[in-house]
């Protein structure tokens, strides 16, 4: 008989018999049992409430994306000998896995990510709260003035829940941003004005405009190159 935790408060004592429907694994030195077919994040955060893993690009209604990397944990597939960093929102639970959600290395990594995000979006409430929690003071970098962290939740919501794909992520690297088809900022007919994107946005970067359509967060760096590209394309 082994004691397995099934939620943050509840444990049961059972034999760890083979069973395809459940997975036994260890989280921060606790034995845990959860149903199979989930990711670590889902299993710990949603199903059982064990662990305290931050996440910004995860939402239960859309497919995980793995962009913010805040949910990173350390896992070992060889019983605790070798660990590696994985995004828990994407990594499936497996029998015998050893998971560490809150080691110093993990906290340092999250701290670094928060520092980078806060430098990009210094005025964003969720980031300020995370910064407090993880002890990030003033970012050591030049500050931007964005609101959008490019988690892609709005895009996934519009595509997967609403079925419209009225917005998408365009461009790459630091030029990535959310835009309507053909790199427009004004939403066109594809948008039905449901406001799902504004609702799901974790930073409040998308607001509904007076015309009933969302106002997209423009990346406010003056991108000379894009302007040049556009005018070259226009001839």
């Amino acid at each position, binding site marked *: 008989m082994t004691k397995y935790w099934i939620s943050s408060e509840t444990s049961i004592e059972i034999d760890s018999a083979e069973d395809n429907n459940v997975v036994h694994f260890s989280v921060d030195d606790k034995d845990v049992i959860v149903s199979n077919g989930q990711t670590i994040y889902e299993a710990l955060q949603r199903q059982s409430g064990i662990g305290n893993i931050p996440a910004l690009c995860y939402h239960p209604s859309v497919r995980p*994306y*793995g*962009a*913010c*990397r*805040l949910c*990173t944990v350390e896992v070992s597939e060889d019983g605790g000998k070798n660990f590696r*960093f*994985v*995004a828990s929102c*994407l*990594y*499936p639970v497996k029998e015998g896995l050893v998971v560490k959600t809150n080691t110093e*290395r993990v906290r*340092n*990594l999250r701290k*670094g*990510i928060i520092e*980078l*995000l806060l*430098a*990009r979006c210094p005025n964003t409430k969720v980031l300020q709260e995370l910064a407090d929690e993880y002890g990030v003071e003033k970012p*050591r*970098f*030049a500050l931007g003035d964005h609101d959008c*962290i*490019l988690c*892609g939740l709005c895009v996934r919501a519009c595509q997967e829940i609403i079925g419209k794909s009225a917005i998408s*992520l365009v*461009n*790459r*690297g*630091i*030029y*990535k941003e959310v835009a309507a088809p053909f790199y427009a900022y004004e939403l066109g007919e594809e948008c039905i004005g449901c406001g799902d994107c504004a609702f799901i946005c974790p930073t409040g970067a998308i607001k509904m405009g007076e015309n009933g359509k969302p106002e997209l967060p423009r990346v406010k760096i003056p991108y000379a190159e894009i302007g040049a590209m556009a005018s070259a394309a226009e001839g």
Partner: protein
Amino acid sequence: MVEQVRKLLDKRLKTPEELEKLRQSIISDKDTSRILISVCGGTGCRASGAEAVVDAFAEEIERLELQAKIEFKETGCHGFCERGPVVLIGPKKIFYQHVQPEDVPEIVAETVLQGKPIQRLLYTDPATNEEITYETDVPFYKRQTRLILGANGEIDPTDIEQYIAAGGYSALSKALFHMTPEKIISEVTDSGLRGRGGGGFPTGRKWQSCLKAKGDIKYVLCNADEGDPGAYQDRSILEGNPHSVIEGMIIGAYAIGSNNGYIYVRNEYPLAVERTIIALEQAMDYGFLGENILGSGFNFTITINKGGGAFVCGESSALIASLEGKIGEPKAKYTHMSEKGLWDKPSLLNNVKTWANVPLIVNKGTDWYSKIGTKGSKGTMIFSLVGKINNSGLVEVPMGITLREMIYDIGGGIPGGKKFKAVQTGGPSGGCIPEEYLDTPVDFDELTKLGSMMGSGGMIVMDEDNCMVDVARYFIEFLKGESCGKCVPCREGLAKMSEILNRISHGQGKPEDIEVMTDLGEILNNGALCALGRSAANPVLSTIKYFKDEYLAHINDKKCPAGVCRELIEYSIDPDKCTGCGACVRACSTNAISGEKKEPHVINQGMCIKCGACYDTCKFDAVIKG
């Protein structure tokens, strides 16, 4: 007669015996008395005018009606591109460099018809000042083991029969008729072959998991994206010997049970694309692709897919997204491609060079192959050796050769008597290795230990005039531009890294910068989604590790010891050396230099834009950079 007509209509070989018969007849039909002229038609030599040389040879041969006496062919890249256009003549391979169309009549009259080498076209060894007649004696080639690239100089890539004559498709025939899939995979495993696309993953193990993966549809993929700046090994193989890659892929497909393959090649490689398409068509015509290959009952086709040319599309999951017609962005790979790859089907992805190794292993056997190289890295590796080096080009060497041998024996050392400073290996996310490690054997594990990597085989040599901060800045700028921007550590981290490096090279470095960059390096290594981000800090971390003094000189003293970072250098004129000739005055575009004729001149620092024109112009070394 009927037999002949039928043969004309259908070249498809139906049995392994027919292949052998064809091979024998090509070989015996060949008039061996003809003298071979082979002109390199690789992209490098074409850039220096090889096409005109090819035309000139063709015209000259026709004018003199020498078709019966001369066998003339345009081949793929010979590797020594900086000497292009390169021409080889005769069985002993007389090596001519920088050949121009005007040289052609003389080459035909003197060398081809009378066997006399033309001195002016020969290669001179800079070390000994000796002229070298034969390719095999040129130091650049002497130390190489050209298992993969060797055929490049010998066969016309647009003629499958030349590949067949050289033994081509015999490995396929052996695999199909004398080996089980399991046996092929165990041979590849035992050979010790590791993926040449950068990761160095054991190839046999990958094949084994694809074989075991469930599913009736499986895909075989060839990664020919080659996005590293300065690397062109894969391009050269596809341009020079595309059938070696195709043969490898067919063997791989048979081994794992796949009927469909894709070659993902960058669109910026028009010649590679063209020659691969020709090769695929010919392989189809001869029955090496399509249905019932060589009568074995095995079916396999290959489709070519032209990529959009993003560096990140070489990453396996981004490559698959791109093949599927989606945005070329990486995805987490917690489920292996061997189980769920292209369209969620089991997929086997290997690099061009990896595939090209397969026929060799099948033909010559594991024992032979595994004798080449080091304990953990078998076979040869192809490097593109460039930078501050006398002989640059594509170099194929056995794993385990030392960096020193590569740079000094093959590369001929550093030009201009300058001092070696570092060698950057592994492409943009590789690291810089200093002089003290020059005797390190080059293989996957040793390079990783030094904070660099094998990557796709880039090797850039740097001398005392290279600033290591500037080098790090250059690679971070590249990676920042190529980051897909999906995950935070890579998108934001590289932008911040580049911000800091730019500040440092502009003389605005802060004491804490090194620590901040080291922290960012850790976030990238541990937190990024794909290997682009996870390795992107290497250029910075390795230069901080080995060249910290240079960073400190920039940050604390606001000096660039190598004299590269413009904001940190100052030009002045040594009054004792200046003759007042006025050459610098004319060279200066901002009129910053003044002085009386025949009197020492001075530079007005306020007007100087530090372009260095005066420094380059002065014949009396009177301009001081510091």
